[in-house]
């Protein structure tokens, strides 16, 4: 899921929901760009997406470039957090946007199955194939038809650390899981526990599990488990949970122990590492940790907030768990053709470079020049994402039905929180996960 923008919503809950609603209402006016001269002059492309704040501002820069090139007017409509409800009601009301940016694989599939989407044009497909690893195309394809163009990506296999904590403890960036545990215990010896775990937010725990599972069990099993073709009671799941328990059960590794971790939300976990009173040395989450450390705690990513890739577990390769936003064109679009032209533009490296320069963005497109990124840390994450090529896998819980992989206090979130509280029996947790999954997948 697009964690970076939804974090605030999830953590501060209702307050920010109300705030976000207010923002949505005020932002609904959107601003149309003046039409220039070009092949699409006089046409207006309406784009809907969940982005707010700086993400929205920066995306509008991309739209501006498109307007300049083609003469089309562009309007960005914030959809609020629930894209699928928003788009559904707009289509029913006969007022469908032309282009929608879809943040979850599951939602993309739901749209395609409902028959709401236009297949990508030949030219868009061509440009996309030139720039994107086939895995991104697969995630945008439903039943053999390519609908969704992945434009913005997230990198969720980064472990962030406070450099002064590691140097104080005299450890280097670990390269393997065992080294990670050793480094963690060294950190604990130095008096600063290893990890701040955000147990109050279930999704951070699913991300922990997914990284371990992808590396330990391999991409094939990962895909099977994501589609629930193998059961959660599979030995590979038990093994991954056992590995995860190595961290969870160790008081030296989890700052404050499970009890405190379960009362730490995601921003809280970043604060524990990068805040004014650091209580831990490392925090695992996606590339957006850097953003939080920078915006909230004035750290400079790359200098006093660094990351290393999530290390390989056992004999596996280092995992790259990802997520992203896919652009789709709706069938009911009033300016479908112009919308498709926008997707053609979004598929080019040029579009990615515009936002890369503005910051807070990773492009899955390998032709986006590394120089386009504003800082070294983002550049490094982008390079690692592109270098992973086809071994990139989407966040598993985002691929699952929301009742299993995306609901506060239920399904995988809840069961992994219980596991954090008591990691003594991985097998029982696997059984419980399977029971919950069977119920929601319905197979």
């Amino acid at each position, binding site marked *: 899921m697009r964690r970076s923008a939804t974090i605030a919503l999830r953590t501060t809950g209702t307050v920010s929901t109300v705030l976000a609603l207010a923002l949505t209402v005020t932002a609904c006016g959107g601003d149309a760009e003046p039409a220039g001269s070009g092949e699409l002059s006089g046409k207006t492309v309406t784009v809907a997406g969940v982005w707010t704040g700086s993400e929205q501002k920066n995306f509008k820069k991309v739209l501006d470039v498109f307007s300049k090139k083609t003469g089309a007017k562009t309007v960005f409509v914030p959809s609020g957090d629930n894209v699928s409800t928003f788009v559904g009601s707009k289509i029913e009301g006969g007022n469908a946007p032309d282009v929608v940016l879809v943040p979850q694989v599951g939602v993309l599939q739901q749209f395609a199955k409902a028959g709401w989407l236009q297949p990508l044009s030949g030219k868009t497909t061509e440009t996309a194939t030139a720039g994107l690893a086939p895995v991104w195309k697969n995630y945008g394809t439903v039943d053999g038809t390519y609908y969704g163009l992945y434009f913005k990506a997230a990198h969720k296999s980064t472990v962030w650390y406070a450099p002064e904590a590691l140097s104080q403890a005299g450890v280097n960036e670990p390269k393997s899981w065992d080294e990670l545990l050793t480094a963690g215990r060294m950190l604990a010896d130095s008096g600063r526990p290893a990890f701040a775990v955000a147990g109050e937010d279930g999704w951070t725990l699913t991300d922990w599990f997914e990284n371990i599972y992808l590396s330990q069990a391999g991409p094939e099993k990962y895909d099977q488990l994501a589609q629930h073709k193998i059961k959660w009671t599979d030995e590979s799941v038990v093994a991954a949970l056992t590995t995860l328990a190595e961290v969870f059960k160790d008081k030296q590794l989890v700052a404050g122990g499970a009890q*405190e971790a379960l*009362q730490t939300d995601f921003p809280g976990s970043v604060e524990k590492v990068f805040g004014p009173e650091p209580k831990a040395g490392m925090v695992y989450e996606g590339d957006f940790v850097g953003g939080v450390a920078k915006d909230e705690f004035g750290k400079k990513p790359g200098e006093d907030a660094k990351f290393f890739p999530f290390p390989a577990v056992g004999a596996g390769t280092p995992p790259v768990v990802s997520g992203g936003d896919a652009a789709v064109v709706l069938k009911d679009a009033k300016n479908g053709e112009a919308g498709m032209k926008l997707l053609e533009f979004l598929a080019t490296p040029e579009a990615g470079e515009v936002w890369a320069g503005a910051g807070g963005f990773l492009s899955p497109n390998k032709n986006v020049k590394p120089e386009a990124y504003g800082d070294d840390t983002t550049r490094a994450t982008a390079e690692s994402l592109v270098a992973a090529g086809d071994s990139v896998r989407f966040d598993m819980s985002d691929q699952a039905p929301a009742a299993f992989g995306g609901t506060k206090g239920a399904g995988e979130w809840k069961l992994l929180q219980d596991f954090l509280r008591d990691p003594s029996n991985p097998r029982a947790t696997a059984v419980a996960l399977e029971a919950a999954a069977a119920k929601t997948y319905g197979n």
Partner: protein
Amino acid sequence: MSHTPKARAAADPRRRALRRRRLLGMLFVLPALLLLGALVVYPVVFSVGRSLFDASGDRFVGAANYMEMFQDPATLKAVRNSAIWVVVAPVLLTGLGLVLAVLTEKVRWATAFKLVLFLPMAVSFLAAGIIFRLAYEQNPDRGVLNAAIVGVHDAIDEPSPYPTARAREGKGLSGSPGEGYTTVEVRPGGDIVLPFVGVAPEAVPHRAAPAWTPEPSAGSLSGAVYLDFTPGAGGRQGQIDPKENGLPGVTVEVLRGGTVVASTRTGDNGSFRFDDLGDDAYTLRVPASNFAAGYTGVDWLGPALVTPAIIGAYLWVWTGFSMVLIGAGLAAIPRDALEAARVDGATEGQIFRKITVPLLAPVLTVVFVTLVINVMKVFDLVYIIAPGPVQEEANVLATRMWLVSFGGGNDQGLGSALSVLLLLLVVPAMIFNIRRFRKGGA
């Protein structure tokens, strides 16, 4: 006689007038009936129908949703919690309201007192939920309740000097921070180093000096408790390295045959020394009191306490309501009955039990039943105060219904079944209240 036709003629217009009046009445009631039908009856009927279908709404499943409701552990927890709420909250609120109402009658600043107690009623549940979510935070730096509890606790019981410390493993000390550490048997005349790790640099007192062991002498046991960690690593484990500091203020005990014969505290450089020991076998112990984890307060929002904690917030909001209502009933009690009792020499307690409460019974019942109905539909407080990991432990029927229907699962079949259950549970209380109102009206 000419009397009869006249009478008949008079009856007809009367009947017509009656019919017209009835029609007019219907016309006036109609809008209300339509509204009720559209907003109450139709949704109820629809929910009952919907509860017989599966999540997608396409397949008829009969009573399967109702069966699942009583098999699903999460829903059973919600049923249990709802039961706790219904039993505990109205009883406490009515009791509290009664006591406060009687007491405010007797205090000087009654109005101000009532005003303050009634104020929370003006706060929305959402805001109240957020206030208590913060108040109940475990971290004493954020949660005001735990700040108070920890403050009091630490004032009585001094916190241990090194709550995070533990012995360097395999370097002469065995045990755990929870039960303390002991050495193997030693004989006087030697130096013993006791290495510890896991103390953050800022947690070491400023007075700490580089670790140093006193000169050994015959008949004495000496050594140092020190932090066996060189910043930036590179130190040798279990040995005092140049940059390693002693840990001041650690209690060290010397034992002979299991009983403590002497005890001391380490100096700034971590050193300790026991003199005048005979030539016997001793063990050294670093007791657990040095490492007792700091008291962290009450885990209000943990799985065990979350429901009582939320009920507490509910009490805060509603006490004013029940107090004011009962207070109004109290004002209506005939004074002469009370005065007669006083003249007869009844104590205040007797008056309260034997006169006030029986006379107030009708009011108390109304307050109680109204609160029961209100408690059944409590939603916002539970939804806002319970953190994600304990959401399930805190759920009541209303939140469970919402979460099942719209919170991700989107199983509106099961959700409807839950809402029907909730309706069935509220109905007896409703009927009871309506009967009372009727009696009151008659």
